[in-house]
């Protein structure tokens, strides 16, 4: 524990850097996956390709992605952007399926009756489909959040600083408490964000009551 006493301010700094990498990636994943999920839902023909592409992306190991992205996007290898792009790709791949399911899960009877009440197409999306997809969507976002936060650590392998740095540095120096700190703080951060999302979800969906609202796909998604 000497190590932690000597280095706590560094840990704080790395935690902030970790967040600065994870949060934009999570936000970008959501921003990409929701419209894609909507598209996949609306156009069953595109569905196969979108979901297929997602699983291809998800199957690519992370390390090479970090080398290929700079080549494709023409950015420096150790730019944080590289990692954010990689994480966004994974996050989107992971979320698209759930986002599709979220729209599928909206009760067709409810949509019908909204239509019969005279909702226009746009009003339908913003006031019926989107809010009603929130519970399933949010469960997917929670999974993406946890996995992104833990995946940020691999950036350390190519020199992008985050809590992962504690893993590689601790490993080089053979300081177990440094590695353990890295693991524990990463987990804590992931679970903290997860808990926050859970609370936000509850606040956003008061109609859900206390009932457990899980779907199978979301649990199995990752």
């Amino acid at each position, binding site marked *: 524990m*000497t*190590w932690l006493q*000597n*280095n706590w301010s*560094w840990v704080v700094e790395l935690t902030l850097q970790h967040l600065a990498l994870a949060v934009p990636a999570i936000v970008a994943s959501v921003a990409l996956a929701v419209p894609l999920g909507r598209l996949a839902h609306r156009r069953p023909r595109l569905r196969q390709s979108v979901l297929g592409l997602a699983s291809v992306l998800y199957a690519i190991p992370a390390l090479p992605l970090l080398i290929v992205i700079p080549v494709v996007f023409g950015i*420096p*290898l*150790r730019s944080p952007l590289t990692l954010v792009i990689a994480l966004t790709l994974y996050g989107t791949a992971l979320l698209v399926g759930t986002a599709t399911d979220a729209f599928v899960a909206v009760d067709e009877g409810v949509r019908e009756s909204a239509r019969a009440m005279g909702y226009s197409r746009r009003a339908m999306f913003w006031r019926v489909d989107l809010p009603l997809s929130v519970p399933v969507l949010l469960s997917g976002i929670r999974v993406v959040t946890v996995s992104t936060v833990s995946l940020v650590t691999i950036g*350390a392998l*190519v*020199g*992008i*600083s985050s809590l992962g*740095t504690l893993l*590689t*540095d601790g*490993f*080089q*120096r*053979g*300081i177990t*408490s*440094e590695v353990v700190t890295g693991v524990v703080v990463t987990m804590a951060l992931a679970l903290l964000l997860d808990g926050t999302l859970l609370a936000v979800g509850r606040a956003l969906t008061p109609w859900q009551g206390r009932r457990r609202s899980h779907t199978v796909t979301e649990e199995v998604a990752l």
Partner: protein
Amino acid sequence: GGSDPLANDGGSSDTIVVGSQDYYSNEIVAEIYAQALEAEGLDVDRQFRIGQREAYVPELESGSIDLFPEYSGPLLQYWESKTPARLSDDVYAALQKATPDGLRALEQSPATDQDSYVVTREFAEKWDLSTIADLAKVTDPLTLGGNSEGESRPNGPKGLKSAYGVSVDFTPIEDGGGPLTVKALADDDIQLAILYTADPSIRENDLVTLEDTKGLFLASHVVPIASDDVDKDAAAVIDKISAAMSADDLVRLNQLSVEEERPAKSIAADWLEAEDLA
């Protein structure tokens, strides 16, 4: 320098960007540079732990990093993979030549940190080993552990065969001679490993470094690489540090980091203090 050329007029910026590898020992040296420059009243921007050469050398070459502690042998091999140079002065001379425009190698330090073959004390005594050539005496099968690229490097199994006539098997361990490699030695999963001479685990685990009588490894001194933005005065500060640092110093600095688990900042400050360079 500065990472943004548009922000500085005429390159006479007063901020020096110091970089380091994603390697604790290198970070300490970089931190020493940084603190010494700050003591001279210069502004320093630390860009530490920025990965391996493939990540940071392009940035050095492009001028977004001004100063970087390097190692003469490996850096020379990075720029000229087929260099025949082996000995300290040859390597330094070749490195100066190989260094691209806009960069220069400052004075190299007597402190060395180079690859070496190590075995356990027990193993060395059992077979009475002190040089690499002695490995020929070993009749049991030998396995070398190291980064996967080592298998095809001139100082790997091929070099052992051609220079010393020793045949070994190879097992990849991707921690660059870190604790896993050391543990594999201790567990007798491998008998032979490549470690840095300044690695404190050699002393800690009572490992034996085999003498490289035929120059399999390039000499590897700590050498600062600087851009044109490092002016004469700044270079002089760094040269003083290089001159003051010995191979033993390097081992001790590493020990402070690994065994006492101290951060680079305080190790660097103590060293500068002790050497009267602060």
